[in-house]
């Protein structure tokens, strides 16, 4: 009886696993089937062709996503990680409690609301759609995510490790940075990556901030394209050719996230293999 019950439970877990994996594989499969044929070297290195002409690529979107996500990371990763460290170091302080509450609320805020906010504060005031406004919107989404995962990861570090460092004569800040944070760095990086992956795929906050752009540009004070915006435009357009490009762009978007994940994993790999 006990064995039968165990089998049933394992079976249920397997079913759940299949349910979780199948949609993922379907998405990847569809993207590959419909998009892979359009992807070539040119697709990554060329601006879009004029309608009706063959060839062209999504360099504008690719570059735009990298620039905007990059700027958002540069400005907001340190803020998010720093706030997370503060909240885990002074968990009971009033500031930490308040920050945590606000972060939780912001994590639950729909991204389009953040987009409207950035529009009101940055675009409407300057009268100019710009990549900077897009970055700001993405960054605002990123901070609470990064902060909360950082805090959770630090909480997982055994207190004994912190005490060992303190007993060795480590000042508190050094204990935090060189022992505690370093021990859970891979976890913090994973959290940051999830945040990057999420904002890289965000469309709504960019609609009224970065707006999108037909041309390749790196001027952050001007409207700029981004992969999700390109997908949105191609997918909602009336042309068969655009639909094809839309699929391919979506595939590129996923590839970008994948490359970023693998790169960050390699960069934070433990020196001692899996045990360390």
């Amino acid at each position, binding site marked *: 009886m006990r064995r039968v019950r165990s089998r049933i439970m394992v079976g249920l877990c397997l079913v759940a696993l299949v349910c979780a994996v199948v949609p993922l594989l379907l998405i990847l499969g569809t993207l590959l089937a419909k998009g892979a044929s359009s992807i070539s070297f040119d697709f990554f290195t060329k601006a879009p062709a004029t309608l009706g002409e063959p060839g062209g690529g999504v360099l504008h979107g690719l570059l735009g996503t990298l620039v905007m996500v990059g700027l958002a990371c540069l400005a907001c990763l340190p803020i998010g990680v720093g706030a997370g460290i503060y909240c885990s170091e002074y968990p009971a302080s009033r500031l930490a409690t308040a920050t945590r509450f606000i972060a939780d609320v912001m994590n639950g805020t729909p991204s389009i609301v953040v987009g409207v906010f950035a529009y009101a504060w940055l675009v409407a005031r300057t009268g100019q759609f710009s990549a900077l406004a897009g970055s700001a919107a993405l960054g605002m989404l990123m901070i609470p995510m990064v902060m909360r995962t950082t805090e959770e990861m630090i909480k997982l570090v055994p207190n004994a490790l912190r005490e*060992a460092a303190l007993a060795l004569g480590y000042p508190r800040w050094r204990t935090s940075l060189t022992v505690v944070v370093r021990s859970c760095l891979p976890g913090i990086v994973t959290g940051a990556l999830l945040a990057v992956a999420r904002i890289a795929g965000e469309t709504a906050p960019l609609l009224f901030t970065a707006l999108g752009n037909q041309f390749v540009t790196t001027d952050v004070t001007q409207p700029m394209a981004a992969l999700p915006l390109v997908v949105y435009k191609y997918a909602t357009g009336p042309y068969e050719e655009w639909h094809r490009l839309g699929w391919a762009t979506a595939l590129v978007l996923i590839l970008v996230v994948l490359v970023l994940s693998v790169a960050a994993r390699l960069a934070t790999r433990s020196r001692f293999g899996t045990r360390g």
Partner: protein
Amino acid sequence: MAETSPPRLATDKLTAMYGKFSAVKGVTVAFASNRVHALIGPSGCGKSTFLRTLNRMHEVTPGGWIAGKVLLDGEDIYASGVNVVGLRRRIGMVFQKPTPFPTMSIRENVAAGLKVGPRLPKPEIEEIVEQALRQAALWDEVKDRLHTSALGLSGGQQQRLCIARTIAARPEVILLDEPTSALDPMATQKIEELLLELKRDFTIVIVTHNLQQAARSSDSTTFFYLGEMIEHGPTSQIFTSPKDPQTEAYITGRFG
């Protein structure tokens, strides 16, 4: 044991609190230099808390605070203006569970305490690392793998690594909080032998649940019960002719 020289470490009416609960109540005791001092008593008697007041680790625990004095070489370590970080470099601590730093290699673990002290030239650090590992009786086992993860060592080796890490920082006093309770008898024996070796250079205070361990390796024994110090004296006297009936009951195994 005639304690003629001034004690290295002493407490004066030391009380340790967790919020409103007093875990240690008015303990006055003195520990002579270059001896092994054992703290014994049943679980929850306050001996670990007492140990943690000696290098101001008690105040790291949320709600932890103390009253009274702890004197290191006659100076109150709780006096205002005392540099806690510097103090902990003078009074090292080894915990119940081995706590090697997971992101550091064996060599870096031993050198960890040197990084926060005055800057030393690299060859000197290498020398201190080797010496500390030799003193902790670990050198022969790890000399060919100094650059591998400390987590690859066995529990007993990890604990000796933590001892090496503590002595590499050259403290005056070493506090050990049940250092062998997570180890097998072989590893325990190695660490006990180590204590006898180390008391030439350091003053050692060790909390132990293991009465034989206290009897075998310590010079003085202090018995705690319900947060109070019941008896303190030379180990031979405590174990053969205790003055207090509670001490006698405990060491003969009638309670605890």
